[in-house]
């Protein structure tokens, strides 16, 4: 009896161990995650090393190249670039988590409902998805911006969430559509399980790896969009982000003045985070999808 009961447990741990085994041996996943985690750690623990005000002016320290005192040098106004970089990383991760989370949540809710309900509801949600998909997001933002003076990280994340969910919705809808025709969904209905629970507890667990990967992509995408918005002057009016640093550097001609230390850290920061997330995602795909595993 005891042997019979322990056998399935073993089988389960074997499956889990297999995923972990491939996860720990996947250089793309490990490398990508390492880069993101290091940058996240810099953003979180950076203030311990350097707790200055990112906006503190200092005319005596203006336009300094990197040194022991100012690791990443200073700006035209003598602001410490490393202090700004640390604060900027935080904002950038914040907008990634908020905007990416919002994108994923809106897209999943609409995708799940459209795919599960089908019929008329699906057609209407599909139409909405297509409308948002072809909406010129930038033009909308310019208009919204003209009316709403206050621009915070939260507003930026909200805007990203409200405009970039369609591709998530489409992909989730397609997967839900094929899963809901499986008989276990009918069996759950025959057990009087409410629709919300059927979607969350029966259908979603079958695509958990996919949903996880979607969130990672949304996270990276959100950072990229936020940085572009910052750069063209549609960023938050308060605080500092990597995109805003780039915009400042550009505005004060850092490139022509040869102040490379002003624009390289934020540029490299954005590229590294977004690039590493994409690489990690490719790695995850290989872990979850045995067909893609090399060797």
């Amino acid at each position: 009896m005891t042997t019979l009961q322990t056998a399935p447990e073993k089988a389960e741990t074997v499956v889990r161990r297999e995923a972990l085994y491939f996860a720990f041996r996947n250089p793309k996943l490990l490398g990508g995650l390492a880069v993101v985690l290091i940058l996240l750690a810099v953003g979180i623990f950076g203030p311990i090393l350097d707790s200055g005000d990112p906006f503190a002016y200092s005319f005596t320290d203006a336009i300094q190249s990197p040194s022991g005192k100012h690791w990443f040098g200073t700006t035209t106004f003598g602001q410490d670039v490393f202090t700004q970089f640390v604060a900027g990383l935080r904002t950038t991760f914040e907008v990634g988590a908020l905007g990416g989370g919002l994108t994923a949540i809106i897209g999943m809710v609409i995708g799940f409902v459209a795919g599960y309900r089908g019929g008329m509801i699906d057609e209407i949600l599909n139409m909405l998805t297509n409308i948002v998909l072809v909406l010129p997001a930038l033009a909308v933002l310019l208009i919204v911006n003209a009316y709403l003076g206050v621009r915070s990280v939260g507003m930026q994340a909200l805007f990203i969430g409200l405009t970039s969910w369609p591709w998530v919705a489409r992909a989730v809808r397609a997967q839900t559509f094929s899963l809901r025709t499986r008989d276990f969904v009918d069996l759950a209905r025959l057990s009087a399980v409410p629709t919300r629970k059927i979607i969350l507890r029966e259908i979603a667990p079958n695509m958990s790896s996919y949903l996880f990967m979607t969130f990672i992509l949304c996270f990276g995408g959100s950072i990229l969009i936020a940085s572009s918005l910052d750069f063209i002057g549609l960023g938050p009016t308060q605080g500092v982000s990597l995109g805003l640093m780039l915009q400042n550097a550009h505005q004060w001609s850092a490139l022509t003045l040869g102040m490379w230390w002003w624009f390289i850290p934020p540029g490299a920061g954005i590229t590294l985070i977004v690039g590493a997330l994409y690489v990690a995602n490719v790695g995850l795909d290989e872990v979850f999808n045995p067909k893609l595993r090399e060797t």
Partner: protein
Amino acid sequence: MLSLADVSKVYRVGAFGGKTMTAVDGVTFDVDQGQVVSLIGESGSGKSTIGRMILGLTAITKGSITFDGAPVRPGADYYRKVQGVFQDPFSCYNPVFKIDHMFQLIRQIRPYTQEKLEESISSVRLEPGQVLGKYPHQLSGGQLQRLLIARALLLDIRLLVADEITSMLDASTRIDVLNLLVDLKARGLGVLYITHDLSLGNYLAERTVVLRRGVVVEMGPTEKVFEDPLHPYTRQLLAAVPRLHAPWEDARPAGCGVHSDVQPDPDHYVACSCEKEPE
């Protein structure tokens, strides 16, 4: 117990439900307590649609289905009395959970003890210790199908809709599962046995309903339908021995056999066979 009256189902297909497709057309029959009724028809004749309407999984377009006089209302109350088992046992289990999950789901509509669970698993001739705690892919189709019947027994239901439950099983397992249906009948359950397989239908059922393109062409006591088929379609269905190199011919009436106003036996219904035929 279960009563279908002039039940029709029209599916909306195409963009914004532009086109329609009549899958079931004016079907009327009853299933009583302790009775097995077999619903026979070829693939696409609307059998599953009827089963799903009885189970409240698909809406009825026209007509009514009542259980003990009350119309079908999907919900805990109804599913304590009426349950279904389907064709593909592998698709009936959520692959990410152990099979215990399926039993867990019905706890909220009828609480049960661990003993009761093991008792119902034993009653479908399975060893509880060998199946509980396993993932669906670790069990065979026959075992999974029996567990679905155990689930129905645990709910203490009164009517089971069995939709081609043996068509994906191998011959020996098929007989075992059919014997379980005989047990159910002995317990006083009503069973709607949906099949396209004639040879097994008559083995169990008191009554047979022959369905063709969503329409009942003949129905009555199984022995009358099988020994004295009156509708040309039923005749052809019974006479049909699969032949190689010969295409399956759709039943075409050779002249008019029976008119609906000439019912030979009140208990043996035959549709008029000289209705306008498509093609």
